[in-house]
């Protein structure tokens, strides 16, 4: 069944921009992590995420059909054109908050990629199959760290609980559905995000319980990232740093 090209493009940007923006955030830790192993692990995670972005945005550019590349999409769009979920653009905070955000995102990715492997769109299924192998490692590691820090010292537990309270209102956006999602679900390209919530809650609930952390009660969800309606003020600063070189020296290569 033919799917609306613009909707498919939006869908691809939502995944590709989320992994791209999170990749940049995670890369900010390079050289600053508490210990060498963590520094290496974070850099590798950022690398996997950027690799996934290249695939998603590469396909997005192809669907767009304007002769652009993944790099053009990454470096030459403005904040209002980005479709990443707000969770990914939030500042890192401390190491614990970075890893908790990673876990909340990894858990979503692991559920989503598992479904996208069966996508009716061959390219989407191929990218998901590739990404899912990496995501499986990511979620295992971020979950371990969340448990280690949550169920750690009094100080680490306190910080992780604070991080959870800060981040939790950004989780709901990942499960929002709109007409883009409806079109993807109808064409068998991707599941309705709302249908992933149960599996997500089971996984996240299990890990957070083991980490002795309490999920906040409020149902409020910040949104506007994946629709492009309104990003946080943090995205512009992130893009200024990420895009600076290509903006200042257009077409620069090395």
């Amino acid at each position, binding site marked *: 069944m033919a799917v609306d090209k613009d909707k498919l493009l939006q869908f691809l940007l939502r995944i590709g921009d989320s992994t791209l923006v999170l990749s940049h955030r995670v890369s900010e830790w390079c050289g600053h992590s508490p210990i060498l192993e963590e520094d*290496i692990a974070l850099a590798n995670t950022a690398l996997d995420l950027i690799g996934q972005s290249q695939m998603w945005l590469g396909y997005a550019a192809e669907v767009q059909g304007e002769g652009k590349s993944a790099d053009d999409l990454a470096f030459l769009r403005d904040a209002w054109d980005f479709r990443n979920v707000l969770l990914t653009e939030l500042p890192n905070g401390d190491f614990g908050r970075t890893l908790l955000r990673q876990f909340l995102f990894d858990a979503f990715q692991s559920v989503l990629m598992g479904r996208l492997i069966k996508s009716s769109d061959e390219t989407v299924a191929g990218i998901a199959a590739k990404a899912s192998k990496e995501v499986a490692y990511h979620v295992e590691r971020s979950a371990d760290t969340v448990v280690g820090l949550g169920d750690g010292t009094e100080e680490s537990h306190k910080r992780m609980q604070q991080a959870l309270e800060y981040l939790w209102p950004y989780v709901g956006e990942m499960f929002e559905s709109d007409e883009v999602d409806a079109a993807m679900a109808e064409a068998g390209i991707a599941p309705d995000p709302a249908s992933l919530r149960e599996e997500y809650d089971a996984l996240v609930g299990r890990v957070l319980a083991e980490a002795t952390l309490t999920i906040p009660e409020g149902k409020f969800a910040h949104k506007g990232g994946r629709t492009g309606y309104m990003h946080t003020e943090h995205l512009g600063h992130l893009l200024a740093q990420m895009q600076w070189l290509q903006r200042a020296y257009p077409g620069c290569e090395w």
Partner: protein
Amino acid sequence: MTQPSVKQVWEWLETIPDPEIPVITIVDLGIIRNVEFDGDTCVVSVTPTYSGCPATSMINMDIETCLRDHGLTKIELKQQISPAWTTDWMSDSARAALEKYGIAPPQPAGGPKRCPRCGGDHLEKLSQFGSTPCKAQWRCQDCLEPFEYFKCI
């Protein structure tokens, strides 16, 4: 020059070492998925190990250099994502070479079978990631040496 056979091209490719683990070749690693001629253009399909592996562009350059050195001028490199690379495609000789080099080869069980240095089997995981995306860091509790494990994916 006359067009070389596909088999000949494979033999040339078999001489290219992995840029990060030089004891195995890129053919051993299983990332060359296909070689064929489209008219007089030699088309080589390559799949990345990990999607963001920085060695990918290096490997592409090495392939191109190698084939040019053997006189080919029309070369096309195709990135093939699907089916996703798996360590199952790694040859047995590559696994043995890895172990000899000090890197524990991938195991379906998800962790190294034995210490590549002393053969001990009291092992502990230090970190899920190593010096490259494809490796994890482990330590042997028998000889107390840390070592890298090539992750099974």
